[in-house]
């Protein structure tokens, strides 16, 4: 399976993703699934600037993502799939059988959100979404960096 990580991170493409995970996992492709970014020239330009040589980055609208992930899943690239929201990843994991585990990497404070970890704040709806994903067989863990300990959804929300 060459979808190595599926990550939810509201900072999208940034150092923790590119350097922190890119190097130890030997990623060579980042797939960002986000309707707004896919439609915005200036955002795509900025995210490309954050990615070093050796890693390809592509921007997909949600509707086109499942078909593309099916192709990448059987391909040679080591891929990180990225969404900015729990809702986006929940939709994607239901629409694509390539997502078998979800990594919560950074979901920060916002209206209606409660702190679960220093880098994971969730609304009740987001927590319910993640629980239903896990009930459907997708493993959900929080882990900001490969060197930090993964925290299971169960222990996170208990």
């Amino acid at each position: 399976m060459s979808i190595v990580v599926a990550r939810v991170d509201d900072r999208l493409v940034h150092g923790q993703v590119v350097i922190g995970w890119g190097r130890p996992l030997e990623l060579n492709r980042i797939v960002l699934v986000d309707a707004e970014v896919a439609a915005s020239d200036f955002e795509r330009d900025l995210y490309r600037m954050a990615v070093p040589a050796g890693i390809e980055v592509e921007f997909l609208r949600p509707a086109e993502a499942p078909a593309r992930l099916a192709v990448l899943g059987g391909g040679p690239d080591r891929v990180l799939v990225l969404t900015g929201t729990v809702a986006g990843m929940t939709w994607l994991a239901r629409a694509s059988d390539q997502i078998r585990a979800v990594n919560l990497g950074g979901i920060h404070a916002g209206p209606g959100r409660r702190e679960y970890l220093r880098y994971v704040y969730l609304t009740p709806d987001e927590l319910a979404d993640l629980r239903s994903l896990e009930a459907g067989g997708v493993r959900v863990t929080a882990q900001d960096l490969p060197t930090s300990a993964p925290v299971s959804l169960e222990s996170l929300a208990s």
Partner: protein
Amino acid sequence: MAVSRVTRSVLRLLLLQSSWTYERMQGVGIAFASLPLLEPLRGDPARHREAVGRSTEFFNAHPYLAGIAAGAAARAEVDGVAGATIQRLKTALAGPLGSLGDQLFWIGVVPGVMAAMLLAVGLGAGWPAAAVGLGLYLAVRIAVTAWGAALGYRSGLGVAAALKASRLDDQVRRVGLGAGLLVGLAVPIVGRWLAGGHPAELAALALGGAGGVWAALVRSRIPGARLLTLVAMAIIILWHWSTS
């Protein structure tokens, strides 16, 4: 009066991280630095209030380049860009400003200035070289912050294009290569200075220095800087050997 607004913002940017928290990281610092830039909105209290509130939101980038984001977001607010777009602009800026700033300073300006200081001391300039080096570092840091805030405030939503046009990534690479060259020159010169002319001690120091520099550079993100450091070191050592 745009110039003086930017200048006041730059002074505030020097305090960017003094209110750092996990919840918002540099958010409150960005807001503090944005207040002078948002002054044109004060005639419309509701809009001003909304813009200031938005400027406090979660943000994290390299502190010396964060002014680019503060300036661009403030310009977009003044231009009346939709709030959601401004939030997305800041999110998109955090990644490249973080990684470019890390490369420019932590593996560029910082080791470059340190190596220049050591080189000067090793060649007999004495300890005043250290004060000059610190002054030089501060000057670069403040100049980069001022340049960034002005570029951001000039560009607003066009900041991505302005950053590309500024060739900041090429400059970062050049500074990294320059730093590699200076470190490579400094290690054997400082080794000779420390060894006081004893060949055996010099050889040991050169080997130890080379190992230490290599270990420090293994994580370098500037392609070519590692090689350049080692080549400069080898040239100085060989040159010293052949003339002693």
